[in-house]
């Protein structure tokens, strides 16, 4: 669990509930020790800065290149995107996911919302999704696959190999299907399949 800034406690609670062994990742050696990484919601420009100032960014990039499963929600999705739209000056991401992601795509907080969302890969029922100053995927690379779209077609959940990202916050609801989907990837990689 990347624990530099944001709602990492909520993710830890979900992952622990699902039986995962969770540690906080703030330093390079911690990033090298885990078999999967969740990047929480928060402020992406702050997570970016903190990750670079203490060297954890390079370790995470190395692990992503190596195929480690990573799940990012909201700011976490921004952190694993290759290309950022409306980033702050000098903002970087870990990258790995061949997509472009626009920050604050819906506008300010008064445009934040909740909605039910069909996620075919998770089956029924629809997921109740919470969007908070949320980013969206504006461009999907060849390898990336949309997992969910809003009714206007906007991509809000995406997968590419072992990388998984959602614009919304499953950690804020009692629906743990995305976390389970991620843990299945971690387990599959650990067992060498």
């Amino acid at each position, binding site marked *: 669990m990347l624990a530099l*800034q944001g*709602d990492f406690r909520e993710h830890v609670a979900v992952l622990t509930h699902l039986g995962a062994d969770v540690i906080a990742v703030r330093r390079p050696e911690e990033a090298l020790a885990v078999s999967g990484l969740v990047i929480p919601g928060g402020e992406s420009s702050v997570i970016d800065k*903190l990750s670079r100032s203490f060297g954890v960014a390079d370790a995470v990039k190395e692990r992503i290149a190596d195929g480690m499963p990573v799940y990012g929600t909201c700011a976490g999705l921004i952190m694993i995107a290759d290309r950022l739209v409306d980033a702050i000056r000098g903002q970087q991401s870990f990258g790995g996911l061949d997509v472009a992601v626009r*920050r604050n795509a819906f*506008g300010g907080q008064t445009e*934040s919302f*909740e909605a039910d969302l069909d996620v075919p890969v998770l089956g029924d029922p629809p997921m109740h999704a919470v969007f908070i100053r949320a980013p969206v995927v504006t461009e999907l690379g060849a390898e990336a696959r949309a997992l969910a779209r809003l009714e206007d077609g906007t991509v809000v959940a995406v997968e590419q190999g072992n990388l998984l990202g959602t614009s919304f916050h499953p950690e804020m609801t009692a629906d743990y299907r995305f976390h389970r989907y991620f843990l299945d990837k971690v387990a599959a990689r650990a067992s060498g399949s």
Partner: protein
Amino acid sequence: MSESTTHEFGSNRVKRGLAEMLKGGVIMDVVTAEQARIAEDAGAVAVMALERVPADIRSQGGVARMSDPDLIEAIIAEVSIPVMAKARIGHFVEAQVLQALGVDYIDESEVLSPADYVNHIDKWDYTVPFVCGATNLGEALRRINEGAAMVRSKGEAGTGDVSEATKHIRKIKSEIAALSSMSKDELYVAAKELQAPYDLVVEIAETGKLPVVLFTAGGVATPADAAMMMQLGADGVFVGSGIFKSGNPEKRAAAVVKATTFFDDPSVIAEVSRGLGEAMVGINVSDVPAPHRLAERGW
């Protein structure tokens, strides 16, 4: 692709949720777009747009009000992190204006002159979320009952003296701990003594925490101050006058951000505390005569 899918705006979860995303972060007071840019570059998780920082409000005196809409709009245009702005306690029209301007959070703040000495704003009426100050658990729960989606302990703004912030966060935390150990029949009396709604008191007793994010504010001036607030159990910190009233705002702002994340690692706090230049001069809270203490505004 139909229009029938409902998007629910301004729900409790969405309002409280933004505060959840700010956790572990530093919210900085800024009075110009240029300061907002410096704060964003330094790693602020949000900025508080206002005309005068508390230290100047304190020294200049007079009635302190909501900022000029031009200033707030300029700051919103300058940065992409959330922008908060202050309304006077009870001034529901200032709050309406701030919502119309598109701020991300409203601080119903004792730092400004109260507009109503009886009622706070009915915060359930708004799509935009509110943060309110509290000196103790009862005050925090009264604000939550009125619709606050985030609470900050008050401290004594504009002093650079962290002692009141310490007192308030300790008070709130210890009152929560006390509720957790009470039997059900004792909670009725506890609610009466806290002057707080019984249902909220029961919820706190069961969960052992507030239902909203709790930041600390008021007098935080150094990286060590911020880290101490985090070690005392704050979810994040507000830094008001402490950044831009200091010798090197850029460096101090970045240092406070790092100390907030690595609050439990003294070696990091030591590293970032080096060579920050002059801290804000500050005044001791004990030297501020009682009628001029901002924390006593709000009830």
